[in-house]
Each structure stands twice: as C-alpha cells, then as structure tokens.
C-alpha cells in the first residue's frame, strides 16, 4: 500500500499546485518563507509585477552619481565590459553625447537586456506556450515562445526574437535578431546587430528572481560577458501596468491641446 499512499500524497500536492495556478497569486504567509510559486505542470510561475532596483540603466559599470543620475556598483561580472580596442571610441563618443544621443531619450524601444533594468516595473504573464513581458516604459511588449519553436530568420527587431526553454527551474531565453540601434545603458555602451543575448531567470525566493544575461557580439567585444542582478516582486495589491506612454509626451511638446 506504500505506493498508493505516495501517489495520494503526490495527488494532494498536485491539487495544491493546481489551486495555486488557478489563483494566480502568491500565497501570503507573513514571517514565513513562502515556497516558490509553481504551476500545475510543476514549472515555476513567474506571473506578477516585477522591477529591478539599481543604476544599471544609467551605466552598467561602477559610476559616481551625477546631476540626475544615481551612482551605482557594476553589474558586469569582473567589473568592466571587454570591448575590442577599436570599439571603445564609439562608446566614448556615445557617452559624450548621452544627453541627446541615448535612443531611449527619443522614446525608442529599449532593446534587450536594457528593458529589464529600466526604472519602471513590468508584468510577466505566463501560459504553457507563451510568456508575455509587458513593460511600462513605452508599452514595450515581448512575446517569449516556450513551445520549442525556432527563431525567425532574416528579420531584425528592436526587442529581438525570444525563444525560451526551462533548465530545471531556470527560464533560459535565447534572444537573437536584434538590431544595432539600441544601447545597453545611458552611458553609451552599445552593440552591433550581431548581438546575441541569453537571459536566465530563476527564483531566489518567492519574491525575488536572479537575472543573468550573457552578451555575445564578436564585432564589438573580445569575449562574451555577463551581467547579473536581482529582480524584485512589487508587492502592492492589485498593482497593474500603468503605461509610460513616452511617445505621447514627446508629441505634447509640439501640440497645443484644443479647448473643447
């Protein structure tokens, strides 16, 4: 009867997981370590509102504060980005012109990985075949395929083409087909259209994810390099995406509203 009792325990666990999936919420139990939320299929459930809290969007590397810019530690493994000698000049030029040249300042879609650590929250929506990341900044949207489908060919996208798989409890997102028009940060760190990003999302605990992105671009960097940072769950009840409609603010500078 041992087998049966194990299977009934498993069934109970499965039912509990199913309930969790149905509720779509993280159970709250203050003062206790809550388990990582999981779906009925056992996969971690990443649904919710998330946000990175650091200064990476201004500069991935260690930097002092400046007017309007918070200082911060480096999020780059080893501290500095391994540029090819010939590629540094462009970064320096970008940096010198950052106030006007940063693509994000023109309301352009931020690209991957920068969108992750912009100082705005984002929502993760999860179904068995698709994950959607819905970012407040410029209502940027990513549809991440977890159905084993291959990358599209011969097109470039601002946000690239994202195909993901699970490695144990880690969501591994392979991002290709990125264009060469986005920056990694406001400090002018840049890439070519040969950029290939592999992101890894894994739970630290129920309310924190560890985020890693491996960056590969043989035209600009001497070797692949890695950034990592925590992503924090936004715990406010009923928080939802409140879009930062950058483009409409851009146009408002040129349009006098009519008076009805």
């Amino acid at each position, binding site marked *: 009867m041992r087998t049966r009792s194990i299977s009934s325990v498993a069934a109970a666990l499965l039912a509990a997981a199913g309930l969790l999936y149905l*509720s779509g919420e993280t159970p709250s139990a203050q003062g206790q370590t809550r388990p990582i939320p999981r779906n009925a299929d056992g996969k971690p459930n990443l649904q919710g509102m998330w946000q990175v809290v650091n200064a990476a969007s201004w500069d991935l590397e260690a930097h002092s504060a400046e007017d309007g810019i918070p200082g911060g530690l480096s999020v780059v493994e080893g501290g500095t980005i391994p540029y090819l000698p010939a590629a540094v000049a462009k970064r320096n030029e970008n940096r010198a012109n950052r106030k006007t040249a940063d693509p994000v300042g023109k309301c352009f879609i931020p690209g991957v990985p920068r969108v992750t650590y912009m100082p705005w929250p984002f929502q993760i929506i*999860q*179904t068995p075949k698709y994950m959607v990341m819905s970012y407040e900044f410029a*209502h940027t*949207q990513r549809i991440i395929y977890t159905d084993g489908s291959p990358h599209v060919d011969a097109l470039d*996208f601002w946000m690239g083409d994202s195909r993901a798989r699970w490695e144990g409890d880690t969501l591994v997102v392979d991002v290709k087909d990125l264009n060469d028009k986005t920056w990694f940060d406001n400090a002018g760190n840049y890439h070519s259209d040969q950029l290939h990003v592999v992101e890894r999302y894994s739970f630290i605990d129920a309310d924190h994810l560890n985020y890693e992105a491996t960056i590969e671009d043989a035209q600009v960097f001497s070797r692949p390099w890695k950034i990592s940072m925590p992503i924090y769950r936004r715990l406010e009840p009923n928080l939802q995406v*409140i879009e930062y409609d950058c483009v409409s603010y*851009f*146009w408002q500078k040129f349009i006098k509203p009519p008076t*009805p």
Partner: protein
Amino acid sequence: MARTKTRVLLLATVAVAGLAVTGGSAAGQGTPAKSDAPPKAYSPPKTADGQPDISGMWEPGPGRPMEKERGGKPWQPPAGASGQNGAAYTFFPPGTQLPGGRSADRSAMIVDPADSIIPLQPWAVTRRDEIIEKQDKVEYLDPRVRCIQSGVPRANLPVFYNSYQFLQTPGHVIILYEWNHMTRDIPLDGRPHLPPQIRLANGDSRGHWEGNTLVVDVTNFTDDTWVVGHGAPPEGAPASAITTGHGVVHSDQLHVVERFTMTDKDTIRYEARIEDPKTFTRPWTFALEAFKRGKPDHQLFEYACHEGNRSNVLLSTGVDIEK
C-alpha cells in the same frame, strides 16, 4: 551586413494606409446592419479554469463603413484623384484582396442609434470638421499617425496592418495587438477600476463572462485618442461624406462597454457601447465581426511605429529622431 530591416512603419504607409479596411468609401446606404442581429448561439470549449476559450491567433475581420453620410448624399472624388489625396477612393478599389476581406455588406456598423450617425455634440462636429479640413497640421494629425496607442474601441477596428493574440490565464483575458505593440490585461475578478487620477490611452479594463460573452468595462481614459476613425480622407471631401468615423474625439469622461462573442469557431463578434456625455448627445453602439481566426502558426511581429516614423515626425515637428 545587409540584413532585412525591422518591420517598421514608414511614413508613406502611415499616410496612405491610414486608410483602413473599414474603408473610406462613402457607401453606407442600403440594408440595415446585419450585426444588429443577436449573436448566434455557439459554445466554445472551456479553458482549465472554466472560461469560454477565446484564446489563439486572430486577424482583422472584413471592413465596413462606421456610419452613414451625414448629408445623406454620397460624394465622389474629382477625376484623377490619386495617392494620399484620393486614398480613400483609390487605395483599395472595390475587389482589392485584404487580409480580412472587404465586406460585401456595406451597411454601417452603428446599430444604435437607428440612423447610424454618431451622435456628436455640436462642438465635436465642429472639431471633426476642422480635423478633416486641416488633417496635415500637427494639431490635427490622427493620433495613430503619431503612434499614440489607438485607444478603445478603436484598437479593435480592422486595419490590414494589425493582428491579435488572445491569451487566457486563470482569472484574466489578455489581448496582444501587433499594431504598436499594445497589451491589454483584463482581470475578471471583479476588482474595482483604478482611481480616477490615473489615465491610460487604452483605458482601464475590467471584465466578466456573461455566458459565452466577454463583457469588458473600460474607463480611466486620457482625452488624446480618437474613439473610432480610419484613414486620411481625400482632399476636398466634405466632412459630411466621410463614413469612417475619422476625427471623432472624446473627453476623459469616455466609458466603453465591449462585448466579445464567438459566433462560430473562427469568428468573434465585437460590440462596443460608447458613452461620453461631454462629447455625445447619447450613448451609441456599433458591432461587427471584428476578429477572424488566424493560422495556428501565426505570429505577432514587432511593430516599431514611432521608431519608423522619422519622416512624419520631421515633417510635423522639424525634429529628426535619427539624429
């Protein structure tokens, strides 16, 4: 390194293709709107949490005029009208093959009021006439040509450059729009709307299922989108002849109730009731077969609207977004 460029929106496409599948044709005479009939009984399969399963890939349904001519008299463009100026008449001549097709039914989508005319307050009529007359001035540009989110219900009107993905998670319906990468997360748990201080271009959506119909209550709008509207009208066309709903503005009092009903496995009938006492003399309702089932391997592609809008921005503001 000559790789194919991102699928971006070029100015020419915006200007000319502002014209929608709904058509700029001054048609709209004739038979009563067929969508006036109550939705056919169809019971879709259920999702794991018991919702009618509306998920999947969807493409725009066939286009029809929004309303009837205000003057009651069809207008024809002058001979030789072409390009943008004649767009509404020449870009999609009858018989053109469009993704959703051009409906043979040329009746107006408005099912209430019975005259199929948008019940605009006098100031809104004046505003609309101004918009149609001065459409190339920055203050009168179609917000969607500026790549502002389309707003609701406009987001659901068929245009050939859009497609949709509907997702369902327990307690939520999520609609992804290809055009301008818009996302709507519609909670079904009866939570209240956002506080009125928070304003969103696409509004704040709260939904529930009434049988097999998804009913969505949308409030908290900004006042800088258009309710409906399609296409750059041809130059010289009297505003009274435009049947696309072009230039129908709204106030922040806009309140929309949407009804999504599958009428067969490949069709969603969409109905929107529009209420805004500052802008309209009474609530009004339109309905159409807005969504047709897409292929299972259909994908939404990134529609980088603003990023590809360089010429339009330059023309309207003098700012070169690529410098």
